[in-house]
């Protein structure tokens, strides 16, 4: 299963309308401060940000 399925932009927007104003609160986390060049970071690396267990590539 691909985690990001093909989806219509419209349906995403519709779903997001139900949620608090997400983009206003977007806080880009500094998941690995020592890694100053994100292009070298492994996108599959597991990171913990704000309590979320994520893949680095999940981060905006």
């Amino acid at each position, binding site marked *: 299963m691909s*985690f990001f399925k093909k989806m219509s932009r419209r349906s995403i927007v519709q*779903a997001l309308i139900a949620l608090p104003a997400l*983009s206003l*609160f*977007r806080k880009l*986390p500094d998941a690995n401060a020592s890694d100053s060049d994100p292009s070298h970071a492994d996108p599959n690396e*597991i990171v*913990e940000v704000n309590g*979320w267990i994520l893949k680095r590539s999940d981060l905006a």
Partner: protein
Amino acid sequence: MIFDSYEAFRAANFKPKVCILGSGPAGTTIARKLGAAGIPVVVLEAGSREFSDESQDFYRGTTVGDFYFDLDITRLRFMGGSSNHWAGWCRVLDKQDFEPKAWAPDTGWPIRRADIEPYLPEVHDILELPDFRPDVPISDDIRWVQLIKSPAVRFAEKFADELDKSRNIAVVLNTYATELAGDGKRVTGARLWSNGQDAGSFSADYFIVCTGGLENSRLLLWSNQRSNGGVVPNATALGRYWMEHPTFEGGNAILADYGEFEVDAVNEAFFSPTLAAMERLQIMNFGIRLIETPYAGIKHVIADLACTAPDMAEWVAYQLSQNLRCAAQLYVAWEQAPLASNQIELSKTDVDHAGVPRIELHWKKSELERRTLVEGLKLFGTTLIEKDLGRVRLIDWIANGEDYPTNEETAGHHHMGGTRMGTDIARSVVDANCKVHGMDNLYIGGSSVFCTSGQANPTTTITALACRLGEHLSKVVAV
């Protein structure tokens, strides 16, 4: 035969060979096994047929250390014991739970799971369980495990008729064994309390203590104190290595498809670590319980995710729009490391109506357990990522390294250890046959003999061990 008083039992002039103390799942199962083997047995039960505040009051006690339930709330003192309100979750301890673990001192049983497996068909009949499904590996680290939500058999209700009709079994209600007397080789009698007063001493060839995972230690500690070590001659470990299953909400999961895992009738699924993962991370066993969350409950989680990983939040929002069953709450229950310092002591100041010191329970969760909780959730989160199944968010107090909350589930009401099984007399109380070290005629039934707790609720294993002890005793007593 069921007698409502000790006086009525005495008048019947029934002469049992075996005396069992306590009519919960352990005591009832052993009595039925012995009765079926034609051995006359009496079950002395402190409570009556129904709950009463007066009886329950004998269970009061105090706890020192971590927050724990009131001791008169976490168990029931009447015929059938705590099976009168257990929830019915069933699973046998894992094979790996019986093995010693180099990273956790005092682990390992003197028996293996294979030693109780022959009794599982009987356990299935007693607890009314379907067959257990084998574990399903999800990754190298995590396996799907089955916990069966059984009909929660009330032992008194289910077996009252059979016990009443039995010619070999006498159940005597309202009869509290306040202490055992012993000479360091044999138990010579049990002191009884009935109708609010001392009822003298009762003797039998064999005694089996099945008074529950807290009370077994209390009765033996007090008996030993009164008989100068004549009941448990090797008492170093008596009351010690007490364990629970700490249980807390651990966070949330968002899943690509809730249907990815097999869920039970109430839409829940359970996950545990593999032995390899436990070894690598040096943690104890745990069970993560996935409980489906309705949309309203998950909105704030997605909003939170949007702050951290907006694309992922968009994906989740999309999933929610397509499929309202993709979010879950995570509850974690875990195995406690067996520690001698977690122990049942006798209160020095507080006694019950019969003059028996109440319990002072010393209970603290250890660093190893905190690591088990945190690493366990991370392991589950990592597995969901690796298998492209979803994402996990730790609850704030865990993510922030704060103290355990005191307003949550806390633990399972599972009282284990205190009279643990083993070969080393300095670290155990009973041998592999549940016989008290050094005593010829004293045995123990129930989860107080557990060496380790695993992650599974205890009553399935208690019942299996009781079948095994019943069978063993029927051979010993028949000789």
